[in-house]
């Protein structure tokens, strides 16, 4: 009689233990699945970041090159612009002209760039890229990281 009562009392305990064990196992399984998914998602995001870093580098190089003094001179010359080396200022306080206004001499036009720049490109290679609308948020400094490629590193040397 006593042992029967004892076994009746232990049944709920056993149920709770079993249920708890199953619940913990399921939770563990769920967390494992989620973590695994996150790992791969993180890996994809890192790959995407590398891609964007590469794009950023390509665009930065192009902007720097297109903004170089050599490129500006070439472009200005193509547009027929001539530098006037004769500075003249208008003083607003007494409306006087400071300096001697003279037309820019045609001879001053140095249409050919004489300062070498082997890194210079003539036009962007990205002109056919989809234009991305300007961000409305303030730019933040992005730390530069090593941009390893999607192509795997060489297996041997």
């Amino acid at each position, binding site marked *: 009689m006593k042992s029967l009562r004892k076994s009746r009392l232990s049944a709920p305990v056993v149920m709770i233990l079993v249920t708890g064990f199953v619940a913990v196992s399921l939770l563990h399984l769920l967390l494992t699945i989620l*973590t695994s998914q*996150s*790992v*791969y998602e*993180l*890996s994809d995001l890192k790959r995407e970041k590398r891609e964007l870093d*590469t794009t950023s*580098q*390509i665009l*930065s*190089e192009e902007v*720097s*090159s297109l*903004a*170089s*003094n*050599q490129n500006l*001179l070439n472009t200005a010359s193509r547009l027929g612009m001539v530098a006037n*080396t*004769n*500075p*003249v*200022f208008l*003083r607003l306080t007494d409306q006087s002209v*400071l*300096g*001697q206004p*003279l037309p820019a001499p045609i001879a*001053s036009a*140095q249409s050919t*760039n*004489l*300062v*070498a*720049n*082997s*890194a*210079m490109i003539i036009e962007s*290679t990205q002109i056919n890229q989809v234009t991305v609308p300007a961000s409305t948020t303030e730019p933040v*400094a992005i730390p*530069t990281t*090593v*941009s*390893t*490629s*999607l*192509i*795997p*590193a*060489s*297996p*041997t*040397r």
Partner: protein
Amino acid sequence: MNQTGQTNITRRMRLFLTVSAILVVVFAIRLIDFQIVRAEAISEYSYENRAVTRTIPAIRGDILDANGEVLATSVYRYDINAAPSMVKPVSRVVDGVEQVISVEAVAADLARILQEDIAVLLPKLTGTSNYVNLKKRVDADTHRSIEELEIPWIFSDAHQNRLYPNGAVAGNLIGFVDTDGLALAGLERQFNACLAGVDGQERFERGVDGIRIPSSAVVTQEVAHGRDVVLTIDASLQYHAQQTLASEVERLDADWATAVVIEVKTGRIVLAAEAPSVDPNDPGKSAPEERGARVFQYAYEPGSTMKTLTAATAIETGFATMATGVVAPDQMPLFDRTIKDFSPHETWNLTLAGVLTKSSNVGIIKIAENIPASTRFDFMQRFGFGKPTEVGFEGETGGLLSDYNNWDGVTNFTTTFGQGLSVSAVQMASVYQTLANGGVRVNPVLVAGCADDAGAMTSVPKTTSTQVVSAQTAQDVMLMLEKVVEDGAIGQATAVPGYRSAGKTGTAEIQEGAGYGDYFATSFFGMAPVDNPQYAMGVMIYKPKQVHTNSMAAAASYQKILSQVLLTNRVAPSTTVSPEIATEW
């Protein structure tokens, strides 16, 4: 169940329990061995199998001009490699249909993108090797194009590379690095401690699929990226000056030319240009002698631009005034030599102002003949001659200024008009800066400092101001030099309309062997505007074959560069006129 059966069960049970107990003990021992005795070693072994150590490369800092324009930066370049042992046709899905692309076709694509000859590239893909380089240091755009081909036997290695977006603009100052990133010349080498960072290191764990285990990364050494070197140079003005000099070198058939501009009040070097100049992106294209910075590294006998310093010394020491008169024939005997003026002329009665305007060698000797050599030597030193400037550019020359006790009779006098000593262009420009700044010499500055990410500057050079001559002396000399621009044919060619400017011509002979050669180092040094001096500058054209007999060769470049400097910096034109100063008596 009978007695025998009961006994068998009991025996089996005992046997089972005994075996179980033994197994438990064995496992327990092994467990203790694994978990306690060898726990650390096993854990370490396991970690070593999972863990990967990666170097975090430090990014080399940029070199910036005074306005933040990038003159040197770091980018990534890629070596494109293949594993010939793995080479086989590539499967690609085109319009939903899987196609097999032959090795030859893939090689043709590679050759097109890499701009290589297919006949050279294709043989590289055969063999049993696991590594062959197809092309070194391709840019990111090319690398991406290769990547898009999705060729499983193509690999790449990323390398940091130096890019100079403005090419040869300030190239002679910046210097360059080799393909391994080792700084070889110029500011790249001199400020390597600022530019180069310290590589970091991290360890992380990787699963069997190669995917990094989150939160497993441990940075064992923090990476310290390089900092930026900020120059005082204005890249746009530097470019304009180089362009002007390159044009003039070509027109005059000169060997080379330099120009330097110093901000009068701060000593900051706004430009230090030369032609030909080196493109740091491809320094191999320039001859070795064209890869340095002649403004700092080349010393020459200055010639008549030195008369300015002699005049300042004479006035400061009370041996002369602007109006002091001398009789100046076109030549005079001096020991075993005859000192001649630049061209024959009748005897002139010149004031000191006239001596400068006419650039009379005989006249300046007569002005300075009573000044003790020790005094003149002292002033030369106070103006910065005989030692490199405070810029401290690598390989900078201090010129040659021998002790006055070693001057022979001729040298004692020829030093008054710029022979028997040598200086660099920046040293001479510093003399004109001093006189334009009320007699106060401010040491020239080329590098503003080393800036970290937050913009905080370190290695900021000290600025020292030294009163070399009085403000009155400096003003007198400047007004006399203004007459050189107003009255001299060469000086007039340097004038910028609307501005009062001052300067001095120099046509220095160039030593060849024991004597002097046929060609000259022609120069013009000066300051502007005279009524509110902002910039001191100098141009030197070395061995012009056309217009080689006077400093007219330097005048055109000087005028163009000065105009651009005044215009770019919005310097207001002069509103006063120069005073009358007698040049003859």
